[in-house]
């Protein structure tokens, strides 16, 4: 998963040498002088100043997680051993490794910062057990603990490896056996590699200041220090201000078939352009402790830092990490919890939880008051809406169903019936005077009206034959059912009838289901579909 950039600070690369500490974060670099005690540990004032200077350099945000600090330490005090252990379970392996370390190194494992790298595995042969070949590097714990403490205090999460391994990472295609010489200002570091891993590493007290003007005697001094180990090997040279001419002179001076090659450090443009804040020009121990901070000057990145950067770019970690405590990561991280910081965070959260209701009251009250005022204004309008609704409902329920009544009549009346008068009123009273052909038609008509379900009662008040006995004059009265019951009735033309009639009614045309009546007849009967 891609990390969110601003939540994760960029890694810090650190090279801790004998006389100085170099750090690089993104394009910003810093070089700080170190002062050591005779046993190699940093002096107390140096530790303090280093912490202050690094804090100032890193500008760590309190809300950000700790930046990872990948540190390369010099060869001074570092012991390297090749070990071969019988294969076994993880616990067994760990126990055997601790025993081996106790046997091989002058100090017990508890007093060492140590790490191991697997070199290979020997398969079981002729009844022998399978074995694992390891490279173990160890250094006095206090030395690394000092660095660890300083870097933790600066808000980083440090891991340590050997500077020689970091530098080796810069070699494009190293042969199996070769050597690396890192030339510093006052001393140099020679590391011999066998099968790609460091076999031995030592400090040579030979500084590389004014290399271009190095006299033959000085060069001979270096040659004598390193010559014995380099016959026929390739020697990679790193360090500041190393020229091709110096490399050629050294190769010539060695004269044992050793090929010298200068390693280009500034492989990355960013590194080459990195700037340095000279936080202190003089050594920390000197009187000019309050030297100008933050001054920018040209910064030439070291080979070790470039190598560490390359590890990160390759998406991995250095193959050999020196650990102070050989414990599980979870336990270590729990032990390393910054209680003060977390306490502050928890306290802030609790305070926010307690104060939030009050803050809500203070902040949201004006907004809520506005809303309530708006609601109250709406409530006044609600009365108007209620009144209008009541009125419109009353109006709707007051509409007598005259057209429905006429539709029922048109559906029920036999053909040839003559209507003289029809009266309807809003109380649902209907009276009708008409002439039928005979009494049977009257009875049928009455039955149909009752069957329609529209009327509560239908009364034939008077039925009188005409003087010519051709017709029967009838006076009928009926009472419509209450409106609520009428609404439940599906009065009106059915879908089939509308479809049969075709087009929808035009203005001035008969309503659906009522056909045009014969002259003088009100309304025209329709053919019964029962």
């Amino acid at each position, binding site marked *: 998963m891609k990390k969110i950039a601003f939540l994760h600070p960029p890694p810090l690369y650190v090279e801790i040498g004998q006389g100085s500490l170099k750090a690089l974060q993104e394009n910003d670099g810093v070089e700080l002088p170190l002062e050591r005690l005779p046993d190699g540990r940093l002096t107390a004032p140096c530790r303090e100043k280093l912490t202050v200077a690094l804090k100032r350099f890193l500008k760590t945000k309190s809300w950000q997680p700790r930046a990872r600090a990948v540190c390369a330490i010099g060869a001074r005090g570092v012991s390297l051993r090749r070990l071969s252990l019988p294969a076994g379970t993880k616990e067994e392996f760990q126990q055997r490794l601790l025993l081996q370390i106790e046997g091989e190194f002058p100090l017990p494992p508890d007093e060492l910062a140590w790490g191991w790298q697997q070199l290979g595995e020997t398969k079981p042969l002729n009844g022998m057990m399978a074995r694992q070949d390891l490279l173990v590097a160890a250094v006095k714990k206090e030395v690394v603990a000092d660095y660890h403490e300083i870097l933790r205090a600066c808000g980083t999460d440090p891991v340590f490896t050997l500077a020689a391994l970091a530098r080796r990472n810069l070699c494009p295609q190293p042969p199996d056996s070769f050597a690396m010489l890192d030339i510093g200002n006052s001393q140099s570091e020679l590391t011999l590699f066998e099968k790609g891993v460091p076999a031995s590493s030592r400090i040579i007290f030979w500084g590389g200041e004014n290399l271009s003007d190095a006299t033959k005697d000085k060069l001979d001094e270096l040659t004598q220090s390193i010559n014995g180990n380099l016959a026929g090997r390739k020697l990679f040279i790193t360090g500041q201000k190393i020229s091709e001419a110096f490399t050629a002179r050294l190769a010539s001076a060695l004269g044992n078939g050793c090929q010298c090659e200068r390693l280009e450090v500034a492989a990355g443009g960013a590194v080459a352009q990195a700037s340095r804040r000279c936080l202190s020009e003089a050594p920390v121990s000197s009187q000019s402790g309050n030297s100008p901070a933050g001054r920018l000057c040209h910064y030439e990145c070291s080979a070790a830092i470039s190598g560490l950067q390359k590890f990160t770019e390759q998406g991995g970690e250095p193959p050999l990490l020196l650990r102070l405590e050989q414990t599980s990561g979870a336990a270590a991280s729990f032990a390393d919890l910054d209680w003060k910081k977390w306490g502050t965070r928890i306290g802030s959260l609790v305070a926010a939880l307690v104060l939030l*209701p*009050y803050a*809500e*009251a*203070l902040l*949201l*009250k004006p907004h*809520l*008051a506005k*809303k*309530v005022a708006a*609601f*109250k204004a*709406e*409530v006044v309008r*609600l009365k*108007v*809406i*209620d*009144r*209008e*609704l*009541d*009125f*419109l*409902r*009353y*109006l*709707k*329920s*007051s*509409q*007598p169903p*005259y*057209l429905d009544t006429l539709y029922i009549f048109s559906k029920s009346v036999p053909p040839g019936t003559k*209507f*003289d*008068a*029809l*009266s*309807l*009123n*809003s*109380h*649902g009273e209907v009276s009708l005077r008409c002439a039928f052909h005979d009494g049977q038609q009257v009875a049928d008509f009455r039955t149909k009206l009752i069957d329609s379900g529209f009327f509560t009662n239908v009364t034939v008040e008077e039925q009188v034959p005409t003087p010519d006995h051709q017709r029967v004059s009838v006076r009928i009265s009926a009472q419509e059912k*209450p*409106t*609520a019951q009428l609404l439940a009735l599906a009065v009106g033309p059915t879908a089939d009838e509308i479809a049969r009639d075709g087009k929808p009614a035009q*203005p001035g*045309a*008969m*309503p659906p289901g*009522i056909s*045009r*009546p014969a*002259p*003088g*007849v*009100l*309304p025209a009967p329709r053919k019964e579909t029962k």
Partner: protein
Amino acid sequence: MRPLTDRENRIVRFAVAGVVIYLALFYGGRLLAKKRSDYRQLAAEAQTLRRQIQPFQDKVLVVKKLMDDFHMDPAKLKKETVVSDASAAIQQAAKAGGLQLGPIRESPSHGSGNALATVQLEGSGPVPAVLTFLASLNRIGFPVVVDSAQFTSDKSRPGQVKLNLTIIILDFEQTKSPEAPHA
């Protein structure tokens, strides 16, 4: 009076700070609690009003539908002119349908009841025109109810129907409780 020592000065400063903090917490807390109580009361009131208003969303929809059906907005009706306007609209609807109008009598309502006035109208025309006129009466844009209708055949003119209508113009300000006329 002897000058206070540094320790005493510090104690006095701490004491003053403590008292100030106590007073700030005490009175500030009470003030905050009162503000919170007011806010909660206001929130409850808003909630009640909201609940009161919520059902009206449906009512508004019904009112809109009914207003569309009747082509009428009760808020725009004026009591002073509604009778004359409604009468004119009735006559207009009758003429538009092809109905020949006869005598029209208007009688104002006296006192109680929901009616503003009653209009008695006579006319004659073919059956379709009569039915169309009846159908269009509830869409003329005024609160009218046909109280009674009488249809008689016009013997002098075959195919024509005489119509005698009694129309009530409702008083929209007095009408409160709906009650069907013959419920």
